[in-house]
């Protein structure tokens, strides 16, 4: 779990930095839609990640920020310097909150609301002032002539007029009056507006939060406030002057305001920001995969050189050289293993972050979801794993939001109230497959069609195939969600998913059936995956089979065998006849062996017996793609490099089984 949190922070810091860089780039140059999109994507991904980690405040704030960015994106607004400043402040706030979340968990910050309001005001071209420009707020930067000297004690005042506030109680007048008794250093509008259903149109929900310096006693100030506004809620708290930053000009920068619950020992956001820079030295560093690849390849070369050195020993080699070679061998093996391990992680590393997200998302949407994970032990290249995080987050969220129906709808349709989302990973035919399957309502092709017509992608008269319609889902700008929620439906999700998967050299496909659910299948190449392999020898050739597929091995002579029509051989393993595949024959070598070993291989419940000469032992192998520089080789999942630098091909067990069973079915059908 620690590694998961660490990963979140690593990624989060990366995204925050990304946002910052993009903002800076935007500010200094022409607004280019791609850059704005990048900004948007950072925010979107960050929001998703923090929601998955249960940091609701962070995710909520980022959602607000994202909405603001949306208008930058959609309406191509220029990024004014004021707006850029505000956005950067927002990024600072995110960073500070992130830092605090390490020790304090899911924390929010009172300034976040204000900042968002300021941003949206700036977007609408309003001058940046105090948050609500229409509200009666005195100009805090200009103290009255009779203002007390700055050394006067400061108070934080919360002033919430009674809900029945009417014209005779003018808050502006009150605030102006305050100015006569001291200095209003800062004034912020606070609102606590209830949901529309409970909203009383004539009630007052606004209030103010002031930082006020006065030489008068707090009791007098209180009396003044209560006198002017009957029924108001007033709280006055002293401010520790040491921790209070010097009064600033009209725009209160959120990073500099202290939280309203002034617990002096709690570090303010401002100081947390400063601390973030120093504390952020994390336990891990991010290294580009090219560097690791280069390291990995270099190590492979050393392994080969090492084995050459080992085989160059002869009877004349002296004892000291032998000892050195042996020691060297050990270290090289160690090094090799460690470098390989840098890149490989079980997918559980990624999958484990989803149950929480599913739970929260489902709860928020009022849906019941049973989340299943399968194949989490599948090991995957770290790069792949990290790059799959965003696409999977989107897919799973979409499955909950758009796939699974509300419980009552499901009940009406005779489905169990609780929907099921299944996330599984497996490796087959030299690729890693990751599947997100739900038993929800499936994709409404008609609605997709309507939307595509609306977007002008097709005309009223077109009747594209379901596959074509499914493809539309992955196009930028497409979203059928009726309203924008913070979960999905901004039309950014699926095109990002597709882009991410394709950037890994993978592909994504979808199958769906109305009323029964959808299945998204990600196929990613096996650029580097490790597995336990069993070496198999025929003649002087060496092949590898995944150890997970091996069930047992027998001497060929010890088994009873038979052949259908003299050509399709079967062996009897404990009373069950299994198709026999002669590896020699399969790889095109002359075959007349009547002895050797039979290895029983199993995949997806089906078995074959593979006749080989001998077993060469078990070893860890790194799967290498044959397609990258050559072509797919039928019957083989890939290749690996043996300790001596030679290449060995890795059998594709599921392909072998499929061939054998197809052949036997053909034969029995003829019979």
């Amino acid at each position, binding site marked *: 779990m620690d590694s998961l949190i660490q990963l979140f922070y690593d990624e989060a810091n990366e995204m925050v930095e990304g946002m910052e860089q993009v903002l800076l780039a935007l500010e200094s140059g022409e607004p280019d839609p791609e850059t704005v999109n990048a900004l948007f994507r950072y925010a979107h991904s960050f929001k998703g990640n923090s929601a998955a980690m249960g940091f609701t405040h962070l995710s909520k704030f980022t959602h607000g920020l994202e909405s603001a960015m949306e208008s930058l994106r959609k309406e191509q607004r220029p990024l004014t310097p004021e707006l850029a400043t505000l956005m950067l402040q927002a990024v600072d706030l995110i960073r500070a909150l992130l830092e605090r979340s390490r020790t304090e968990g899911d924390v929010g910050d009172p300034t976040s609301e204000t900042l968002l309001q300021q941003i949206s005001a700036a977007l609408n071209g309003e001058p940046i002032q105090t948050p609500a420009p229409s509200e009666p707020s005195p100009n805090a930067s200009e103290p009255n002539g009779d203002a007390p000297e700055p050394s006067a004690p400061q108070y934080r005042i919360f002033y919430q007029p009674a809900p029945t506030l009417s014209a005779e109680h003018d808050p502006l007048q009150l605030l102006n009056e305050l100015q006569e008794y001291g200095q209003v250093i800062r004034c912020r509008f606070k609102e606590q507006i209830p949901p529309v259903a409970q909203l009383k149109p004539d009630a007052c929900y606004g209030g103010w939060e002031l930082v006020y310096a006065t030489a008068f006693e707090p009791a007098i100030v209180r009396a003044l406030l209560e006198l002017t506004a009957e029924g108001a809620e007033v709280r006055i708290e002293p401010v520790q002057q040491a921790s209070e930053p010097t009064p600033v000009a009209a725009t209160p920068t959120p990073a500099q305001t202290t939280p309203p619950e002034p617990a002096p020992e709690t570090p303010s956001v401002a100081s947390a920001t400063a601390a973030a820079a120093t504390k952020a030295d994390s336990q891990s560093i991010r290294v580009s995969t090219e560097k690791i690849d280069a390291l990995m*390849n270099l190590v492979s070369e050393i392994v080969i050189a090492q084995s050459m050195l080992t085989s160059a020993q002869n009877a004349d080699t002296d004892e000291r050289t032998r000892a050195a070679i042996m020691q060297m061998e050990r270290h090289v093996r160690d090094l090799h293993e460690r470098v390989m391990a840098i890149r490989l992680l079980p997918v559980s590393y990624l999958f484990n972050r989803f149950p929480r997200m599913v739970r929260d998302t489902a709860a928020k949407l009022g849906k019941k979801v049973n989340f299943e994970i399968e194949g989490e032990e599948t090991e995957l290249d770290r790069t792949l794993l990290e790059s799959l995080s965003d696409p999977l987050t989107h897919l799973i969220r979409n499955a909950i939001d758009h796939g699974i129906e509300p419980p009552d709808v499901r009940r009406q349709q005779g489905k169990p109230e609780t929907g099921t989302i299944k996330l599984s990973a497996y490796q087959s035919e030299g690729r890693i497959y990751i599947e997100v399957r739900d038993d929800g309502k499936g994709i409404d092709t008609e609605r997709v069609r309507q939307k595509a017509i609306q977007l002008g992608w097709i005309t009223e008269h077109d009747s594209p195939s379901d596959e074509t319609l499914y493809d539309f889902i992955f196009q930028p700008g497409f979203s059928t969600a009726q309203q924008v929620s913070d979960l999905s439906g901004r039309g950014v999700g699926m095109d990002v998913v597709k882009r991410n998967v394709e950037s890994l050299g993978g592909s994504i496909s979808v199958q769906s059936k109305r009323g029964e659910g959808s299945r998204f299948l990600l196929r990613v190449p096996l650029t580097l995956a490790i597995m336990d392999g069993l070496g198999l020898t025929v003649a002087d050739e060496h092949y590898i089979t995944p150890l997970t597929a091996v069930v047992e091995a027998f001497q060929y002579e010890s088994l009873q065998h038979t052949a259908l029509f003299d050509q399709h051989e079967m062996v009897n393993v404990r009373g069950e006849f299994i198709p026999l595949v002669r590896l020699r024959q399969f790889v095109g070598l002359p075959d007349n062996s009547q002895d050797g070993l039979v290895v029983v291989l199993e995949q997806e419940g089906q078995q074959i017996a593979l006749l080989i000469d001998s077993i060469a032992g078990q070893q860890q192998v790194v799967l*290498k793609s044959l397609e990258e520089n050559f072509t797919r080789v039928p019957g083989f999942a890939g290749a690996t490099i043996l300790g001596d630098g030679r290449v060995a091909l890795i059998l594709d067990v599921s392909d072998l089984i499929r061939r054998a069973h197809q052949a036997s079915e053909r034969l029995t059908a003829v019979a």
Partner: protein
Amino acid sequence: MTTTKPIAETTETIADVNAEKYLVFQIGNETYGVPLLQVQEIRTYTPATRVPNAPHYVLGVINLRGNIIAVIDARTRFGLPPLPDDESTVVVVAQVNDKIFGLRLDSVSDVMDIPLDQVQPTPPIASEATQRFLNGVVQVGERVVILLNLREIFDIDALNHLAA
């Protein structure tokens, strides 16, 4: 080949402008050349791992610093009987499009400036099948160099087609 280059009637001093470096080697009695720009490296030949059901000119696959690349035997590809390995047998590692492959050669002899404006189309003496491997011939001093088309020699489309 269809790319008929005009035979230059200019003086020899200008010929250098259009010259490109080629790696040249002997196969049988003839001298062949491939653009040096396409060549990544030349390595001594280490036995390749045979790939079942691959075309006969594909010797197999080898490990090139962690990448698996195919090795094609030039003699077999041109319909000549293969020669056994010896000290001078090499693999020329080349890149065509975005794939890397190795071409096994009896030996490499030289790097040469080939005046591209003096390249002539291949005379139709070669068989239809091998004609596509050739980019033309050029006379350089005493030698006649036959320029090879590595893309056609590797022909990944045909290999993919076989695998499908």
